[in-house]
């Protein structure tokens, strides 16, 4: 196929006379030209698929590069991890992000403390108890909750917390809106993990006369524990990077605040948002450094999640 082109067989009558009408290479050549286009299409598809992968990687590398290269030098400064931005203007160099880091962690913790029991119980309901119409409705609602835009979650909590109940915009309200975003991801991951627990374990437990709730608490949950923890860490990583509800519910402040029920509280996303339009170099540097800190925090949670999943994979 590669040595001779199909044109002599098709075009010149002499070729046929020399080789005879029943030349075995004739049809083979025809097939060859046909499969050559198929091969070409095959190669083209392979090329495009590889290209798509590289195109998808490009923004990742580019984003990480621009954040790391512009943000790393502030992170090497001890002040970054020990000081707040109190009294620091956009013009001045210095200060740290400890107020924002602390706020992000605190709000994340409270969010997790509310979301985890609710989400794990919902997942237990869906896997162990749920049947029929109610279970289908719950499952559907979890899907809808997954798709709720974060700004709508913030708006809803604002409508309840501020307009209806008349409270102030505080850290706890932010946590409440983040709960709406964290619950569905944790429900889904926990559900997947509970489904992986072999039914034989439950049956063995029942056969020993253990009540259902004890079976769930002592047999099913421990078996799925590492997977559940992974899901929680990944869900937490997701909500810690959220900004939209914080714009509505969590005004920024430059000083350290640890009261979730009163006063403003800084977080890393709002710290980035605060100075994003600033063109003075010290402020620009701080914005990138805060972005890098946030990415590191989220990556750390992701890595921890994956590590837990790997270490604890008892089932398999």
């Amino acid at each position: 196929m590669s040595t001779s082109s199909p044109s002599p067989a098709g075009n010149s009558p002499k070729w046929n006379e020399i080789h005879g009408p029943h030349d075995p290479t004739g049809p083979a050549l025809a097939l060859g030209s046909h499969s050559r286009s198929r091969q070409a299409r095959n190669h083209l598809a392979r090329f495009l698929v590889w290209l798509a992968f590289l195109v998808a990687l490009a923004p990742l590398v580019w984003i990480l590069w621009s954040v790391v290269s512009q943000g790393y030098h502030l992170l090497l400064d001890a002040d970054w991890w020990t000081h707040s931005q109190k009294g620091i203007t956009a013009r001045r160099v210095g200060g740290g992000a400890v107020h924002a880091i602390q706020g992000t962690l605190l709000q994340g913790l409270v969010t997790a403390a509310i979301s985890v029991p609710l989400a794990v119980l919902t997942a237990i309901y869906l896997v162990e108890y749920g049947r029929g119409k109610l279970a289908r409705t719950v499952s559907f609602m979890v899907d809808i909750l997954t798709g709720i835009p974060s700004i709508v979650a913030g708006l809803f909590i604002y409508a309840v917390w501020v307009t209806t109940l008349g409270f102030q915009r505080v850290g706890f309200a932010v946590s409440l809106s983040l709960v709406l975003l964290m619950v569905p991801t944790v429900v889904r991951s926990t559900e997947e993990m509970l489904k992986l627990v072999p039914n034989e374990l439950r049956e063995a437990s029942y056969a020993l006369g253990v009540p259902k709730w004890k079976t769930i608490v002592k047999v099913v949950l421990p078996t799925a524990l590492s997977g559940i923890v992974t899901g929680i860490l990944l869900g937490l990583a997701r909500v810690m990077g959220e900004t939209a509800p914080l714009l509505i519910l969590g005004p920024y402040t430059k000083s350290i605040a640890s009261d979730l029920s009163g006063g403003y509280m800084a977080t890393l996303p709002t710290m980035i948002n605060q100075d994003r339009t600033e063109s003075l170099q010290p402020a620009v540097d701080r914005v990138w450094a805060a972005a890098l800190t946030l990415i590191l925090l989220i990556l750390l949670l992701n890595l921890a999640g994956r590590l837990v999943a790997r270490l604890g994979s008892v089932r398999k």
Partner: protein
Amino acid sequence: MTSTSVTDEVPGPGRRPSLGGDRAGTGTGRLGDRLFGGAAVGAGLLVIGLVTLIGLFLLWKAIPALAGNEANFLTSREWQVSGDHPRFGIVEMLWTTVAASGIALLIAVPVGVAVALFITHYAPRWLSRPAANLVDLLAAVPSIVYGLWGLRTFGPTFVPVQEWLTAHLGWFPPFSATSISGSGTILFIGVVLAIMVLPIVTALSREVFAQTPVSHVEGALALGATKWEMIRTAVLPFGRPGVISASMLALGRALGETIAVTIIVSALAQGTPWTWSLLNGGETFASRIANNAAEFDSPQKTGAFIAAGLVLFVLTFVVNAIARVVIERRKAFSE
């Protein structure tokens, strides 16, 4: 307690014919079981209640503002929410939101499907897992970082592309020149959103592609199909419902994305003439709410923004419900 409960719990003959199947029935009537089961059901009901409450609350807070609105909410381009004669409508936000999300899908779905094929069928074995993790990493980048990067780094390099489009394709209405000179255009948000939703498309698509029955794959190959023909005739048709629902989930995400869009897009002044150009600025539902979050001071104002949020909620609800229905139908089909 344990010894008595154990003897109590031992099922009599014929009381429980199927062990695993009879999930709801096992162990009812015991205090611990009733409490624990009740808590589980309660959590489920709470989730239903939350979603219902979100819809109801937004509606409740939006209705007074809508009643006071002197313009048509669905067709007006104005957005004047303060004062005694508020006039506001959503048509401009709807256009910006839908156009940007549409562009995002046009880019993200083909690329995302190709990346999923790469991970499941083309990548060398050692690369497949790291490749999947890398693409997932895109989902871990917070959206505000996308916004920052889009505004400061990616945007300036995208401007020449837009200039080329207006110079050579400017006769085509979507690419006609506008007053916006920077990168805060609908087209550019579409591109950034495409990057943000890519991992969603890829994650779900690769899951369904990996589930393609081996017999289909081997059948196609045994008939002499090339790898691409095998993918076109076996993998893609099998994965189509998965790809559709992945696209819908991605669309839901793109419609509601807030902070990246808010940072990047150039808002238009009131009364700017209407154009179909994708190189125009604008505001999505989410970005308009976020931009004005500091000004929720009167119920009238707040109500107007909540009404916009309600429309966004309904939009994403519908899109996600479609995704869900498509997945469900596939499940019913494959069982």
